[in-house]
């Protein structure tokens, strides 16, 4: 277990590897799900554009936070990157190869380095398997499991790494609490010594007092093992706490991406402002004083193709400044700011607010 004061805090603003080559590059990723109608003769009537041109890169030892409301495509982005859904188009470059072009054994070989932790520790562990078999499964899959005694040793070590008591090796998932189950999920992800772990809402199902245990564990492991994370969560305070860089998604696209400090300190996109402005802060004095920007309306359907900006219909900035209707006719590209090439925003008028 991570002690209350073991000295590690939030990540420093930039990981040591800031200038190193990206480990993983995602380029113009699209993931569309067709919608069929008809029982005998099925025809495609529309497409849900869950991920609609997402690009980002990830450096070794870095945490990229992916935030957005439910349905914005953040989980689908993770799954499509890992080829759990075969992307409609785009490139995922890892280790000099494009994962989208790989199949079968080749893909399996690459996946060793890319693991995932899931949200619900009650659903992602098979209730009929012991902890030992759950953690050993990836090792067996890749033929890395050694003989009985050595394997046991290996599993015990993994359990220690994530703060589980190795004497629980023969227990079943139901004998553990939510936080401990999440640790089992982390141990399973670590078994193959991956380079990247995609964490899909890993603390959302946990109680607040337990959340911090898992957050600290993930940070410790990153420092110790040099892991890179793509950290998906709707809890924006948790993402800020863990990430070096943050991407904000809206309707299948990244609308803003920047270093952690700039995205929270110098938010540019009107949607990012609304999203960050909606996060309540546990301090009554601040809460009473703050000005609330309430977003109107709901997410538009990801099934409709739009020409302009997806956020235009709800955007307060557009109402003030967009006199020639550019927001509805021309899609804003994700472009770097003049003063800060690492901060990219997809808004025509981001400098006018």
């Amino acid at each position: 277990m991570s002690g209350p004061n073991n000295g590690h805090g939030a990540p420093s603003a930039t990981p040591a590897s800031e200038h190193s080559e990206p480990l993983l590059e995602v380029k113009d990723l699209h993931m569309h799900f067709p919608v069929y109608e008809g029982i005998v003769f099925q025809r495609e009537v529309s497409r849900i554009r869950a991920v609609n041109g997402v690009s980002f890169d990830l450096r070794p030892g870095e945490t990229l936070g992916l935030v957005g409301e439910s349905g914005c495509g953040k989980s689908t982005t993770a799954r499509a990157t890992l080829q759990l859904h075969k992307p409609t188009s785009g490139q995922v470059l890892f280790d000099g190869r494009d994962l989208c072009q790989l199949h079968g054994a080749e893909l399996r070989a690459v996946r060793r380095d890319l693991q995932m932790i899931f949200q619900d520790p009650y659903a992602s562990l098979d209730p009929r398997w012991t902890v030992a078999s759950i953690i050993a499964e990836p090792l067996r899959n890749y033929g890395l499991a050694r003989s009985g005694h050595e394997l046991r040793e290996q599993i015990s070590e993994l359990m220690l790494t994530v703060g589980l008591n190795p004497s629980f090796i023969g227990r079943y998932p139901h004998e553990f609490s939510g936080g401990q189950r999440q640790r089992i999920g982390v141990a399973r992800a670590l078994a193959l010594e991956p380079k990247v772990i995609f964490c899909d809402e890993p603390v959302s199902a946990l109680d607040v007092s337990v959340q911090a245990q898992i957050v600290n564990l993930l940070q410790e492991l990153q420092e110790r093992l040099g892991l890179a994370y793509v950290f998906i969560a709707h809890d924006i305070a948790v993402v800020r706490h863990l990430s070096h860089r943050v991407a904000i998604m809206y309707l299948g696209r990244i609308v803003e991406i920047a270093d952690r400090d700039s995205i929270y300190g110098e938010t540019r996109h009107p949607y990012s402002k609304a999203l960050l402005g909606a996060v309540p802060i546990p301090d009554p004095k601040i809460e009473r004083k703050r000005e609330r920007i309430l977003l109107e309306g709901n997410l538009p359907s990801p099934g409709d193709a739009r020409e302009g900006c997806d956020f235009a219909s709800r955007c307060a900035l557009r109402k003030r400044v967009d006199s020639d209707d550019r927001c509805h006719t021309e899609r804003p590209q994700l472009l770097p700011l003049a003063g800060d090439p690492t901060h990219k925003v997809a808004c025509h008028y981001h400098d006018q607010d």
Partner: protein
Amino acid sequence: MSEQGAQPVLELDDLHVRFKTDGGLVHAVNGVSYVVNEGEALGVVGESGCGKSVTNMTVLRLIPTPPGEVSSGRINYRGTNLLELSAKEIRKVRGGKIAMIFQDPMTCLNPFLRISKQLTEAILLHSDMTPEQARQRAIEELDRVGIPDPAGRIDSYPHEFSGGMRQRVMIAMALCTDPDLLIADEPTTALDVTIQAQILDVLRRLQAEKGMSLVLITHDLAVVAGMCSRVVVMYAGRIVEEAPVDDLFADPRHPYTSALLASVPRLDDPLGRHLNPIEGLPPKLAEEPTSCAFAPRCPHAEDRCRRELPPLAPDADGRLHACFFRFKDGEKLPHTDGGQA
């Protein structure tokens, strides 16, 4: 702020609730007392299983009995003990003068009925309106919670609304009988932050407009900070601290409250702040606690905490907490008066 001398609407007095389960008795609520004053917003905070929902469901007698059982205590609503009412009498109060909304609107809305039917049902039950008047009233209420085109949407089915809109429908349904107390059980937990902000805004506005009292049950301290004037913190079926909202956040007195505040990251944290998780797990409530239930997880616990049950008692300055010790900036103060004034 809770004004001095405000009329109490609801008073809970030493409420005990337990459940008979296959695994033995579960003592879910172990002596909870609090008061909700007129027009006030009271926050009830705690983690899952701390008894916050059970306590408030007991107010409306929504606990299934058996297996649930109120073993002792009183719940006074404007002088009437709700626990002594007959089934018929409590139905007059439930959904009438005291209304409740829940985390998941789909557990409360009937998917087979148009919302017009569901909204007018409550109005007709609790008033003398004609069906036509009730429908009109329902449309007004939908308008007030911010549903666009209420006259056009009233004949829709629940599934035709988004999550946030459904929550608004449920609030409209709760408010259409003009309750003077609304119990909101995690009303925004299932929603995205932007939608949460909208719903909290609706609740804040309606509470002010109608002068209604609100009990807001949540695990989210940030929501309480923006909504409530007074807060009750629960742990293992007991209240461990009760305080005006500013005092609670500025100067938490119970170690559990401090620990809870230290374990959540905040959007305005200084960078590099370390999160302090609370080690261990909340206790299983197989027995009624005879010592401090938080002691096994408490960094400050001493022998006395493991032997005696600290009562919820006021400090010298009137602040209520259930701990033998006093703390200042996380440091335990020297033992002077046995911990309690």
